[in-house]
């Protein structure tokens, strides 16, 4: 299956495709409706034409009868019969004169029995039979007149009429027959009134065109298409590449021969106005497709372009460059997406910076938790428990040791203590020489910071005992420490210069913790871990506490309750 590799191409194809389908459907239906209408119009025109043909034929026949009747009543003609003998030459010339007067194609005088008396035909054997057939019809008629069709010679189809020559009425002294050729003029007349192509043709041995308003070639083509049975049939014929709706009407002559009147209208001609409309429609369709193409291109580009830019920017971010911002000055989803990208970049940059800071300041777990929970590192007031631990007897120890070993030993001690702090979720805030400052409850909140601090102190005590055993094994003097713990509201935040920041806490509570630690030196307290009453109040677990009374620490005006933390039971 074909797949689009570019969203823009797909969008373009959809827009142009939909429009093309809509337009083509419209065009199809319009064209079909046009054709149907044209066909209906042609059929109507043909029906009308057929009726007109009948009417014209009737009128013409009536006119011919009238002419013949007037001629038959003409006394000059009657006088031909007054002489003792019928003078045929005189009669012929008189008929020729009449023929000229009424523009008939042929005039005939028959005796009452149908014998030819005189005619205008030049032929030796004039065709009288059609008139004789009319005579037998006329004798039955009250008017003694008859009309019909007939071939007066091989080629000429005539409308023929026969009227009696009364001398006087109702005695029929002779019959007057008249023929009027159907020629191109007659066809053109019919075309003028009906707007139809008119063709008269006959089949006979070979099809023959009698008269037609069509071009001779097309008329000949048409004559070959007529079948003997065709009558009043409606057909569509193709002549010279043009489609004609055609109606055939058979005309039977007085002598029983057949001729056909073919009424036609070119579908092309009828469709011409519709074609104009279709052409306009085609032009409109093409124009709208072009417009749709342009709009589609614009739309596709307006979508794919920012997408591509965002894609490129994603690569930039993926390569670790968080400093480069993407600039998409748009108010839509793409604009917002670009802003989101920028927020993402700066977020990632911030995270990197925070990670940098945390890596130096806090344990990896706390750092990860900070990053995950998104702890705010700005300045804030919060309750924390602060632990200070100071190494005792380090100065005498350091006197007898080289600097390298001293540092190693110090770090060994600090490492154990730090581990104990971190094991309880505390953060080693800083080392001040051999002193440790640790914070519980910041930067990550925890409700039991006092417990954690006390447990950390106990663990530190255990860790120190362990370290002393190792030192004893190494033949070194043992180490001791003093721990002060206080729980208080403090200000937490990144503190320092722009170049170096430290996450730390400051406040009175911090100072109190620092002041409690030296109190462990007092022999009467007999403990290495002293907690304030605030811490004790915050404790949830049970510990072996021993009240040490009130103490006024340095820098404080009020006395504080303090407690010693003994070994757990």
């Amino acid at each position, binding site marked *: 299956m074909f797949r689009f590799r570019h969203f823009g191409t797909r969008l373009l194809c959809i827009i142009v495709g939909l429009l093309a389908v809509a337009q083509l459907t419209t065009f199809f239906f319009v064209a079909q409706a046009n054709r149907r209408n044209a066909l209906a119009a042609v059929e109507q025109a043909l029906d009308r034409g057929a009726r007109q043909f009948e009417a014209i034929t009737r009128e013409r026949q009536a006119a011919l009868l009238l002419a013949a009747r007037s001629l038959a009543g003409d006394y000059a003609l*009657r006088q031909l019969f*007054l002489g003792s003998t019928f003078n045929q030459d005189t009669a012929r010339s008189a008929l020729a004169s009449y023929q000229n007067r009424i523009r008939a194609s042929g005039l005939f005088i028959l005796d009452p029995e149908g014998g030819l008396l005189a005619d205008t035909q030049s032929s030796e054997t004039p065709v009288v039979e059609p008139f004789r057939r009319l005579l037998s019809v006329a004798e039955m008629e009250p008017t*003694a007149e008859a009309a019909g069709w007939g071939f007066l010679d091989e080629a000429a189809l005539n409308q023929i009429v026969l009227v009696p020559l009364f*001398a*006087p*009425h*109702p005695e029929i002294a002779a019959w007057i027959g008249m023929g009027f050729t159907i020629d191109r003029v007659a066809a053109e007349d019919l075309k003028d009134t009906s707007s139809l192509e008119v063709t008269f043709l006959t089949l006979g041995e070979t099809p023959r065109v009698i008269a037609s308003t069509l071009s001779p070639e097309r008329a000949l083509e048409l004559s070959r298409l007529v079948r003997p049975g065709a009558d009043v049939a409606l057909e569509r014929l193709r002549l010279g590449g043009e489609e004609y709706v055609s109606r055939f009407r058979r005309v039977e002559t007085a002598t029983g021969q057949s001729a056909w009147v073919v009424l036609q209208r070119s579908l092309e001609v009828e469709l011409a106005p519709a074609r104009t409309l279709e052409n306009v429609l085609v032009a409109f369709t093409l124009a709208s497709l072009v417009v749709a193409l342009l709009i589609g291109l614009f739309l596709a580009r307006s979508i794919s372009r920012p997408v591509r830019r965002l894609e490129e920017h994603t690569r930039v971010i993926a390569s670790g460059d968080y400093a480069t911002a993407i600039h998409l000055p748009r108010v839509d989803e793409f604009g917002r997406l670009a802003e989101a990208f920028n927020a993402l970049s700066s977020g990632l940059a911030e995270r990197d910076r925070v990670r940098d800071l945390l890596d130096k300041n806090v344990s990896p777990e706390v750092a990860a938790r900070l990053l995950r929970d998104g702890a705010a590192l700005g300045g804030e007031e919060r309750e924390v428990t602060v632990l200070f631990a100071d190494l005792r007897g380090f100065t005498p120890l350091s006197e007898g040791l080289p600097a390298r070993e001293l540092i190693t030993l110090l770090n060994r001690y600090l490492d154990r203590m730090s581990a104990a702090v971190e094991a309880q979720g505390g953060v080693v805030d800083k080392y001040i020489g051999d002193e440790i400052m640790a914070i519980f409850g910041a930067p990550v909140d925890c409700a039991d910071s006092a417990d954690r601090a006390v447990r950390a102190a106990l663990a530190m005590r255990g860790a120190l005992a362990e370290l002393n055993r190792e030192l004893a094994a190494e033949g070194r003097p043992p180490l001791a420490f003093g721990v002060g713990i206080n729980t208080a509201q403090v200000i937490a935040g990144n503190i320092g210069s722009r170049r170096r920041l430290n996450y730390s806490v400051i406040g009175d509570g911090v100072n109190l913790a620092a002041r409690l630690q030296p109190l462990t030196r007092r022999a009467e307290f007999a403990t290495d871990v002293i907690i304030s009453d605030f811490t004790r109040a915050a404790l949830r677990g049970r510990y072996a506490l021993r009240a040490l009374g009130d103490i006024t620490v340095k820098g404080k005006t009020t006395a504080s309750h303090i407690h010693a933390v003994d070994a757990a039971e």
Partner: protein
Amino acid sequence: MRFDFPLITCAVCGTGFWRRLGISLGLGAGILVGPLVAQSSFEALVVDAAGELVSDAVLSLSPLDGQIVPAAAVGGAKISQIKQEYSPYVTAVRTGTPVEFPNLDTIQHHIYSVSKPKRFEIPLYEPGRSEVVTFDQPGLVVIGCNIHDWMSAYVLVLDTPWFSKTTADGRVRFVDLAPGRYRLELWHPRVSKPLSREVTLGTTNGAEPLRLTLTLRPERRLRRAPVPGAGGAY
């Protein structure tokens, strides 16, 4: 004894011609035939196919047994033109009879005939004038008027002196005929062919009239076009 010839009951028969003819024929016959033999009479009733009485039919009897025929008649007949019609419509005459055509109208007429026994014309002539045409060949002569298509008259020219036209009662009657065989011919303007048969007349009278049936063509006489202000003959 007297040979009466009560043939015609038309407008003009009482006034001269027919009476004169009858008298002269009667005189001639009386002189030649009268004292010799007993006389017959003959009566016929003419009806059409529907049994309707037929007037204006002409019945003629031509002798077949050498019966003595009177000499040709003196005098003639008259066909007038009155109110743009010929009157009478049907006239029977013996061959050689001169017929007078008086124009008793207020307009001119143009009489013609193209019938073989007598082709003639009297071109437009003034009212009040009269022309005479002698019908010297037997046969049917149809007379028209060149300027009035509806005017027509029939003149049946016969070689026998014994003929008569049916009256409105469809009857025709002959008296004082010599007995013997006769060729009876019955003609009417609307027959295609005259009826022809042989009859034998005896001396006994009082027989029922001979009933003769004619097959008539449909009436096709032209009706006169109404003329505005003409007082309307039609």
